[in-house]
């Protein structure tokens, strides 16, 4: 059933594992970024690609994970901190998901954006109230260790999205995407299914957030809750042009490459290109995100 895609994926994973043996620090760093974006975008696709509830605030899970990570890391060590970050993001998704997922279509998009910004400012205010404007994380793991962990998360996110898309839940989610009333009327418990997808899509970004704080050894709220992260995720998914687990690879690879070339020298030019890519894909790639990408069927294999 997995057939054609298993082998290329395993090869890609094996190659990814081998990167540190042939590459220098710089390239390992780039590979780490790539793995991070794949993990984030795969998680996004689990929610937005499958259900059509397009989230423009996925950074909230990343940022929350980063915050919980930095708070816990010194106290309980890295492993538990990362686990705790994932758990916190998942629980947060469950808590806000129920009311938020009642909001449909473009209003959900705006709501997610607003929610992420809201959380950003709350954390900023809380930190300011504590007299902390940024925090340092010293003695974190090496880039190499981080690379393998994030690579593992990228693989896990890909597998999760892949299997959910083909599961019973996946059928329900895609039915919800196509027509929520009809889905409900044929027996799909829509509120439950949406909430499940929301929570599943939150956990890995939470863990990634904690790990990326360890990478930069530095935590600043406006950085880890930066809406550019959400925006990049959406653009990667759109460029990837698919509604299942295979999508993000191309999009993430292209944008990471672009970012490596441009980000350090001309961040604005990078952002402008990102904006143009988004416009072009929505307008000219037939159907764009909410049409082509979100409504292309996964092949049935009875």
């Amino acid at each position, binding site marked *: 059933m997995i057939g054609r895609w298993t082998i290329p994926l395993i090869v890609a994973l094996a190659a990814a594992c081998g990167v540190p043996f042939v590459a220098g620090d710089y390239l390992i760093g780039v590979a780490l970024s790539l793995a991070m974006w794949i993990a984030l975008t795969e998680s996004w696709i689990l929610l937005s690609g499958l259900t059509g509830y397009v989230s423009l605030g996925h950074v909230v899970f990343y940022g929350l994970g980063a915050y919980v990570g930095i708070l816990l890391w010194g106290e309980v060590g890295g492993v538990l901190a990362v686990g705790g970050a994932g758990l916190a993001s998942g629980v947060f998704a469950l808590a806000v998901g129920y009311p938020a997922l009642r909001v449909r279509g473009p209003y959900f998009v705006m709501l997610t954006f607003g929610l992420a910004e809201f959380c950003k400012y709350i954390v900023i205010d809380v930190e300011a109230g504590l007299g902390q404007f940024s925090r340092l994380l010293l003695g974190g793991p090496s880039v190499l260790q981080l690379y393998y962990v994030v690579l593992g998360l990228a693989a896990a996110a890909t597998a999760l999205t892949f299997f959910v898309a083909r599961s019973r839940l996946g059928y329900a989610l*895609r039915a919800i995407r196509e027509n929520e009333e009809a*889905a409900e009327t044929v027996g799909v418990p829509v509120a439950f299914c949406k909430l499940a997808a929301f929570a599943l899509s939150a956990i890995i970004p939470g863990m990634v957030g904690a790990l990326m704080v360890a990478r930069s050894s530095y935590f600043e709220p406006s950085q880890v809750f930066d809406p550019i992260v959400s925006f990049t995720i959406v653009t990667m998914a759109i460029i990837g042009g698919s509604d299942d687990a295979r999508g993000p690879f191309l999009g993430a690879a292209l944008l990471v490459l672009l970012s490596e070339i441009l980000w350090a020298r001309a961040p604005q030019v990078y952002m402008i290109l990102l904006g143009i890519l988004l416009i072009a894909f929505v307008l000219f790639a037939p159907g764009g995100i909410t049409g082509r990408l979100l409504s292309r069927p996964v092949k049935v294999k009875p």
Partner: protein
Amino acid sequence: MTLLKLQSVSKTFGGLRALRDVSFEVASGEIVGIMGANGAGKTTLFSLIAGNATPSSGEIWFKGRRIDGSRPDQNCRAGIARTFQIVRPFAGLTVLENVMVAVLFGSSRERSRAKAAARAEEILHELGLEERKSQLAGSLTLSGQKRLEIARALATGPQLILLDEVMAGLTATEVNELLTAIRVIKQRRSLTIVIVEHVMQALMRLADRIVVLHHGEKIVEGLPAAIVEDERVIAAYLGSAS
């Protein structure tokens, strides 16, 4: 045996009263037709029974359990299926997947996708859609989408099925084919059907009993033959009453 019972059900939207004090019963195995002009409240009635909307007052009972206020997916699993007057296919999924979703989440709650696919194919065959199973549902003709609505409703394994103008917009030949298909399907599964139809003749040929709604109220209930001669019905249809 009474399968479905409505007790003085009313529904208001804002200030608008869509249904007022409607009561009737449907026995197991019956085909009941609902007649009424546009805006008489037929679709609202279906939405209330299926759980897509909640009555403002009154009670709805199904198999001896009160169901007003429960969600559509709960009602579906309890054995009520409906079609939509304005078709609502899962346009980006294939025809087969459309029906599979209903098998997976309907009253049978099938866990295995292979079994669900097999079951879905049987139902598509009954409705003459098996040729189109790999096609995207959005690319079907109107007639095809109407059949898909029925197939999807059947796939949930209902005891009661609510058919909302499944013949509207079809040609005479298509109507005849569909009528036959519905009869066969009903016999095979001992279904109970409530059907809203604008195509009068179809309703006359199919229904055991007819309920007539006018401006949200039930004005008559009776055998098809009696209904066509009823003065109130004629008046309502010609528009001299009200």
